Protein backbone atom coordinates (compact mmCIF):
# COMPACT_ATOMS: atom_id res chain seq x y z
CA UNK A 1 0.00 0.00 0.00
CA UNK A 2 3.04 2.23 -0.20
CA UNK A 3 2.64 3.86 -3.60
CA UNK A 4 6.12 4.92 -4.62
CA UNK A 5 7.29 8.46 -5.22
CA UNK A 6 6.19 9.88 -8.57
CA UNK A 7 3.88 7.03 -9.48
CA UNK A 8 0.75 9.18 -9.46
CA UNK A 9 0.04 11.97 -11.94
CA UNK A 10 0.04 15.38 -10.20
CA UNK A 11 -3.73 15.93 -10.42
CA UNK A 12 -4.55 12.64 -8.76
CA UNK A 13 -1.83 13.06 -6.14
CA UNK A 14 -3.35 16.45 -5.23
CA UNK A 15 -6.88 15.04 -5.16
CA UNK A 16 -5.84 12.21 -2.85
CA UNK A 17 -4.03 14.72 -0.63
CA UNK A 18 -7.23 16.77 -0.42
CA UNK A 19 -9.27 13.69 0.45
CA UNK A 20 -6.85 12.58 3.14
CA UNK A 21 -6.56 16.16 4.42
CA UNK A 22 -10.26 16.25 5.34
CA UNK A 23 -9.91 13.15 7.50
CA UNK A 24 -6.64 14.29 9.05
CA UNK A 25 -8.11 17.70 9.92
CA UNK A 26 -11.08 16.07 11.60
CA UNK A 27 -8.67 13.66 13.29
CA UNK A 28 -6.65 16.53 14.74
CA UNK A 29 -9.83 18.11 16.15
CA UNK A 30 -10.86 14.76 17.56
CA UNK A 31 -7.40 14.31 19.11
CA UNK A 32 -7.54 17.72 20.76
CA UNK A 33 -11.02 17.10 22.13
CA UNK A 34 -10.19 13.63 23.45
CA UNK A 35 -6.90 14.84 24.96
CA UNK A 36 -8.71 17.53 26.95
CA UNK A 37 -11.16 14.96 28.30
CA UNK A 38 -8.51 12.30 28.92
CA UNK A 39 -4.84 13.44 28.89
CA UNK A 40 -3.58 9.88 28.51
CA UNK A 41 -4.87 9.96 24.94
CA UNK A 42 -1.66 11.82 24.04
CA UNK A 43 0.63 9.05 25.23
CA UNK A 44 -1.52 6.34 23.70
CA UNK A 45 -1.57 8.16 20.37
CA UNK A 46 2.24 8.42 20.49
CA UNK A 47 2.66 4.74 21.30
CA UNK A 48 0.15 3.77 18.62
CA UNK A 49 1.90 5.93 16.03
CA UNK A 50 5.17 4.14 16.80
CA UNK A 51 3.36 0.79 16.56
CA UNK A 52 1.77 1.61 13.20
CA UNK A 53 5.13 2.89 11.92
CA UNK A 54 6.76 -0.42 12.86
CA UNK A 55 3.94 -2.76 11.83
CA UNK A 56 3.50 -1.16 8.41
CA UNK A 57 7.24 -1.31 7.74
CA UNK A 58 7.85 -4.89 8.84
CA UNK A 59 8.49 -7.11 5.81
CA UNK A 60 7.15 -10.60 6.40
CA UNK A 61 8.13 -13.28 3.86
CA UNK A 62 5.44 -15.38 2.23
CA UNK A 63 7.41 -18.41 0.95
CA UNK A 64 4.91 -19.78 -1.56
CA UNK A 65 4.67 -16.48 -3.46
CA UNK A 66 8.35 -15.61 -3.12
CA UNK A 67 7.58 -12.08 -1.97
CA UNK A 68 7.43 -10.11 1.27
CA UNK A 69 4.75 -7.78 2.48
CA UNK A 70 3.64 -6.10 5.66
CA UNK A 71 0.47 -5.64 7.70
CA UNK A 72 -1.15 -2.22 8.12
CA UNK A 73 -1.75 -1.87 11.85
CA UNK A 74 -4.41 0.78 11.32
CA UNK A 75 -7.43 -1.43 12.09
CA UNK A 76 -5.94 -1.95 15.56
CA UNK A 77 -5.24 1.76 15.97
CA UNK A 78 -8.80 2.59 14.90
CA UNK A 79 -10.30 0.13 17.38
CA UNK A 80 -8.34 1.73 20.21
CA UNK A 81 -8.30 5.41 19.32
CA UNK A 82 -11.03 5.79 16.72
CA UNK A 83 -10.80 6.07 12.94
CA UNK A 84 -10.32 9.85 12.78
CA UNK A 85 -7.22 9.91 15.00
CA UNK A 86 -5.97 6.89 13.05
CA UNK A 87 -5.88 9.07 9.92
CA UNK A 88 -3.46 11.41 11.72
CA UNK A 89 -1.40 8.48 13.05
CA UNK A 90 -1.18 7.01 9.58
CA UNK A 91 -0.05 10.25 7.97
CA UNK A 92 2.71 10.78 10.56
CA UNK A 93 3.93 7.17 10.30
CA UNK A 94 3.99 7.27 6.51
CA UNK A 95 5.71 10.65 6.44
CA UNK A 96 8.62 9.23 8.44
CA UNK A 97 8.69 6.10 6.30
CA UNK A 98 8.85 8.24 3.16
CA UNK A 99 11.60 10.47 4.59
CA UNK A 100 13.81 7.81 6.15
CA UNK A 101 13.18 4.66 4.16
CA UNK A 102 12.02 5.87 0.74
CA UNK A 103 9.02 3.69 1.48
CA UNK A 104 6.13 5.49 -0.15
CA UNK A 105 6.77 9.09 -1.11
CA UNK A 106 6.01 12.72 -0.37
CA UNK A 107 3.84 13.18 -3.47
CA UNK A 108 1.97 9.96 -2.72
CA UNK A 109 1.59 10.59 1.01
CA UNK A 110 -2.04 11.69 0.62
CA UNK A 111 -2.94 8.58 -1.37
CA UNK A 112 -1.17 6.28 1.07
CA UNK A 113 -2.77 7.98 4.07
CA UNK A 114 -6.16 7.62 2.45
CA UNK A 115 -5.79 3.88 1.97
CA UNK A 116 -3.96 2.87 5.14
CA UNK A 117 -5.40 5.38 7.58
CA UNK A 118 -8.87 6.06 6.25
CA UNK A 119 -9.93 2.89 4.41
CA UNK A 120 -8.14 0.48 6.76
CA UNK A 121 -9.05 2.46 9.85
CA UNK A 122 -12.72 3.04 9.15
CA UNK A 123 -13.41 -0.47 7.86
CA UNK A 124 -11.60 -2.00 10.84
CA UNK A 125 -13.44 0.23 13.29
CA UNK A 126 -16.89 -0.39 11.77
CA UNK A 127 -16.32 -4.13 11.67
CA UNK A 128 -15.12 -4.29 15.27
CA UNK A 129 -18.04 -2.22 16.55
CA UNK A 130 -20.49 -4.20 14.44
CA UNK A 131 -19.11 -7.53 15.59
CA UNK A 132 -19.28 -6.46 19.25
CA UNK A 133 -22.90 -5.39 18.80
CA UNK A 134 -23.63 -8.82 17.38
CA UNK A 135 -22.23 -10.26 20.59
CA UNK A 136 -18.96 -11.65 19.22
CA UNK A 137 -16.08 -11.81 21.67
CA UNK A 138 -13.13 -9.43 21.63
CA UNK A 139 -10.76 -11.79 19.83
CA UNK A 140 -13.13 -12.64 16.98
CA UNK A 141 -14.19 -9.00 16.61
CA UNK A 142 -10.55 -7.94 16.42
CA UNK A 143 -9.74 -10.77 14.02
CA UNK A 144 -12.49 -9.70 11.61
CA UNK A 145 -11.45 -6.06 11.82
CA UNK A 146 -7.77 -6.84 11.21
CA UNK A 147 -8.34 -9.34 8.43
CA UNK A 148 -10.85 -7.38 6.35
CA UNK A 149 -9.29 -4.02 7.24
CA UNK A 150 -5.96 -5.25 5.85
CA UNK A 151 -7.48 -6.45 2.58
CA UNK A 152 -9.39 -3.16 2.29
CA UNK A 153 -6.12 -1.22 2.40
CA UNK A 154 -4.82 -3.07 -0.65
CA UNK A 155 -8.20 -2.88 -2.33
CA UNK A 156 -8.07 0.90 -1.86
CA UNK A 157 -4.55 1.15 -3.27
CA UNK A 158 -5.58 -0.88 -6.31
CA UNK A 159 -8.58 1.40 -6.93
CA UNK A 160 -6.44 4.52 -6.52
CA UNK A 161 -3.83 3.28 -8.97
CA UNK A 162 -6.43 2.06 -11.45
CA UNK A 163 -8.16 5.45 -11.44
CA UNK A 164 -4.93 7.40 -11.73
CA UNK A 165 -2.82 5.50 -14.25
CA UNK A 166 -5.25 3.52 -16.42
CA UNK A 167 -4.72 5.81 -19.42
CA UNK A 168 -6.05 4.08 -22.54
CA UNK A 169 -6.66 0.86 -20.65
CA UNK A 170 -9.90 0.12 -18.85
CA UNK A 171 -9.98 0.86 -15.13
CA UNK A 172 -10.99 -2.75 -14.49
CA UNK A 173 -7.96 -4.10 -16.35
CA UNK A 174 -5.50 -2.04 -14.32
CA UNK A 175 -7.37 -2.72 -11.09
CA UNK A 176 -7.18 -6.50 -11.54
CA UNK A 177 -3.55 -6.33 -12.66
CA UNK A 178 -2.63 -4.52 -9.44
CA UNK A 179 -5.01 -6.21 -6.99
CA UNK A 180 -4.28 -9.63 -8.53
CA UNK A 181 -0.57 -9.05 -7.88
CA UNK A 182 -1.19 -7.96 -4.29
CA UNK A 183 -3.62 -10.66 -3.25
CA UNK A 184 -1.51 -13.86 -3.15
CA UNK A 185 1.02 -12.24 -0.81
CA UNK A 186 -1.41 -10.16 1.15
CA UNK A 187 -4.13 -12.74 1.87
CA UNK A 188 -2.02 -14.80 4.33
CA UNK A 189 -0.74 -11.61 5.93
CA UNK A 190 -4.30 -10.39 6.34
CA UNK A 191 -5.05 -13.53 8.33
CA UNK A 192 -1.94 -12.86 10.39
CA UNK A 193 -2.99 -9.26 10.97
CA UNK A 194 -6.44 -10.44 12.02
CA UNK A 195 -5.01 -12.86 14.58
CA UNK A 196 -2.55 -10.22 15.80
CA UNK A 197 -5.29 -7.60 16.21
CA UNK A 198 -7.52 -10.00 18.11
CA UNK A 199 -4.68 -11.08 20.37
CA UNK A 200 -3.60 -7.52 21.18
CA UNK A 201 -7.15 -6.47 22.08
CA UNK A 202 -7.51 -9.61 24.20
CA UNK A 203 -4.19 -8.97 25.93
CA UNK A 204 -4.97 -5.36 26.77
CA UNK A 205 -8.43 -6.40 27.99
CA UNK A 206 -6.87 -8.96 30.30
CA UNK A 207 -4.08 -6.74 31.68
CA UNK A 208 -5.27 -3.13 31.40
CA UNK A 209 -9.05 -3.18 30.97
CA UNK A 210 -9.17 0.37 32.35
CA UNK A 211 -7.52 1.57 29.13
CA UNK A 212 -10.17 -0.09 27.00
CA UNK A 213 -12.92 1.32 29.21
CA UNK A 214 -11.40 4.79 28.98
CA UNK A 215 -11.20 4.49 25.20
CA UNK A 216 -14.79 3.17 25.14
CA UNK A 217 -13.73 -0.06 23.46
CA UNK A 218 -15.45 -2.07 26.19
CA UNK A 219 -18.04 -1.11 28.79
CA UNK A 220 -17.38 -1.09 32.55
CA UNK A 221 -19.95 -3.85 33.00
CA UNK A 222 -17.80 -6.12 30.81
CA UNK A 223 -15.30 -6.21 33.68
CA UNK A 224 -16.67 -8.42 36.47
CA UNK A 225 -15.36 -6.59 39.56
CA UNK A 226 -15.10 -3.05 38.27
CA UNK A 227 -18.43 -1.94 39.83
CA UNK A 228 -19.00 0.54 37.08
CA UNK A 229 -15.61 2.20 37.36
CA UNK A 230 -12.20 1.37 36.02
CA UNK A 231 -11.17 -2.25 36.15
CA UNK A 232 -8.64 -2.34 38.94
CA UNK A 233 -8.75 -5.13 41.43
CA UNK A 234 -9.75 -3.80 44.85
Amino acid at each position, binding site marked *: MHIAEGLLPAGYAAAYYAGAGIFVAKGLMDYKKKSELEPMTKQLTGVMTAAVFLISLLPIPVPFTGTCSHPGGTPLAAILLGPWITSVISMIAMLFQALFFAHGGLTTLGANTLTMGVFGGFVGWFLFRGARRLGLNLFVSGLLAGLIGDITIYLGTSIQLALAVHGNHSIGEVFWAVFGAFLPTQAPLAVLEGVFTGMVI*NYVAAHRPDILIMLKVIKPEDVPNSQGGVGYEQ
Partner: protein
Amino acid sequence: MNNKLVWLIVLIAFVGLVIFISNSNLEMPGADEHVGGIANQYAQEVGAGERDPYINTDKGDLLLFMFALGGAGAGFCLGYNWRDLFGKKSGVRVVR
Protein backbone atom coordinates in the same frame (compact mmCIF):
# COMPACT_ATOMS: atom_id res chain seq x y z
CA MET B 1 2.00 -28.56 28.62
CA ASN B 2 -0.25 -27.65 25.69
CA ASN B 3 1.15 -24.13 25.66
CA LYS B 4 4.69 -25.46 25.56
CA LEU B 5 3.79 -27.74 22.66
CA VAL B 6 2.25 -24.83 20.72
CA TRP B 7 5.33 -22.67 21.29
CA LEU B 8 7.59 -25.56 20.25
CA ILE B 9 5.63 -25.99 17.00
CA VAL B 10 5.78 -22.23 16.35
CA LEU B 11 9.54 -22.21 17.00
CA ILE B 12 10.17 -25.20 14.71
CA ALA B 13 7.98 -23.64 11.98
CA PHE B 14 9.84 -20.33 12.29
CA VAL B 15 13.30 -21.92 12.16
CA GLY B 16 12.15 -24.11 9.26
CA LEU B 17 10.88 -21.08 7.37
CA VAL B 18 14.14 -19.20 7.86
CA ILE B 19 16.21 -22.23 6.73
CA PHE B 20 13.94 -22.74 3.71
CA ILE B 21 14.10 -19.12 2.58
CA SER B 22 17.83 -18.77 3.14
CA ASN B 23 18.53 -21.91 1.09
CA SER B 24 16.06 -21.25 -1.70
CA ASN B 25 16.54 -19.16 -4.82
CA LEU B 26 13.66 -16.90 -3.87
CA GLU B 27 14.59 -13.22 -3.97
CA MET B 28 11.63 -12.24 -1.77
CA PRO B 29 11.04 -8.73 -3.13
CA GLY B 30 8.53 -6.54 -1.31
CA ALA B 31 4.97 -6.77 -2.62
CA ASP B 32 4.92 -2.98 -2.89
CA GLU B 33 7.95 -3.08 -5.21
CA HIS B 34 6.50 -6.02 -7.15
CA VAL B 35 3.15 -4.30 -7.67
CA GLY B 36 4.86 -0.92 -8.12
CA GLY B 37 6.69 -2.40 -11.11
CA ILE B 38 3.37 -3.39 -12.69
CA ALA B 39 1.74 -0.03 -11.90
CA ASN B 40 4.82 1.79 -13.16
CA GLN B 41 4.29 0.42 -16.67
CA TYR B 42 0.81 1.94 -16.75
CA ALA B 43 2.02 5.14 -15.05
CA GLN B 44 4.68 5.74 -17.70
CA GLU B 45 2.01 5.66 -20.37
CA VAL B 46 0.28 8.64 -18.70
CA GLY B 47 3.48 10.59 -18.15
CA ALA B 48 4.11 9.60 -14.52
CA GLY B 49 6.44 6.96 -13.08
CA GLU B 50 8.58 6.05 -10.13
CA ARG B 51 11.38 8.45 -9.27
CA ASP B 52 14.05 8.86 -6.61
CA PRO B 53 13.01 10.33 -3.24
CA TYR B 54 12.95 14.13 -3.04
CA ILE B 55 14.87 14.00 0.24
CA ASN B 56 17.54 11.31 0.13
CA THR B 57 18.74 10.41 3.62
CA ASP B 58 20.79 7.47 2.35
CA LYS B 59 24.06 9.41 2.41
CA GLY B 60 26.92 8.25 4.60
CA ASP B 61 25.95 8.16 8.27
CA LEU B 62 23.14 10.72 7.90
CA LEU B 63 20.41 8.13 8.37
CA LEU B 64 22.21 6.64 11.38
CA PHE B 65 22.55 10.09 12.92
CA MET B 66 18.87 10.87 12.42
CA PHE B 67 17.84 7.57 13.95
CA ALA B 68 20.15 8.07 16.92
CA LEU B 69 18.64 11.51 17.45
CA GLY B 70 15.10 10.20 17.02
CA GLY B 71 15.80 7.26 19.34
CA ALA B 72 17.15 9.57 22.03
CA GLY B 73 14.11 11.86 21.74
CA ALA B 74 11.66 8.96 21.76
CA GLY B 75 13.46 7.34 24.71
CA PHE B 76 13.24 10.57 26.68
CA CYS B 77 9.51 10.91 25.97
CA LEU B 78 8.92 7.28 26.91
CA GLY B 79 10.88 7.61 30.15
CA TYR B 80 9.17 10.88 31.06
CA ASN B 81 5.74 9.28 30.65
CA TRP B 82 6.71 5.84 31.96
CA ARG B 83 4.34 5.80 34.94
CA ASP B 84 1.41 6.96 32.85
CA LEU B 85 2.11 4.25 30.33
CA PHE B 86 3.18 1.27 32.40
CA GLY B 87 3.01 2.23 36.06
CA LYS B 88 -0.34 0.76 37.01
CA LYS B 89 -1.20 -2.85 37.54
CA SER B 90 -4.41 -4.72 37.18
CA GLY B 91 -5.36 -8.26 38.01
CA VAL B 92 -8.89 -8.37 36.67
CA ARG B 93 -9.98 -10.41 33.69
CA VAL B 94 -12.55 -9.46 31.12
CA VAL B 95 -15.51 -11.73 30.45
CA ARG B 96 -15.51 -12.72 26.80
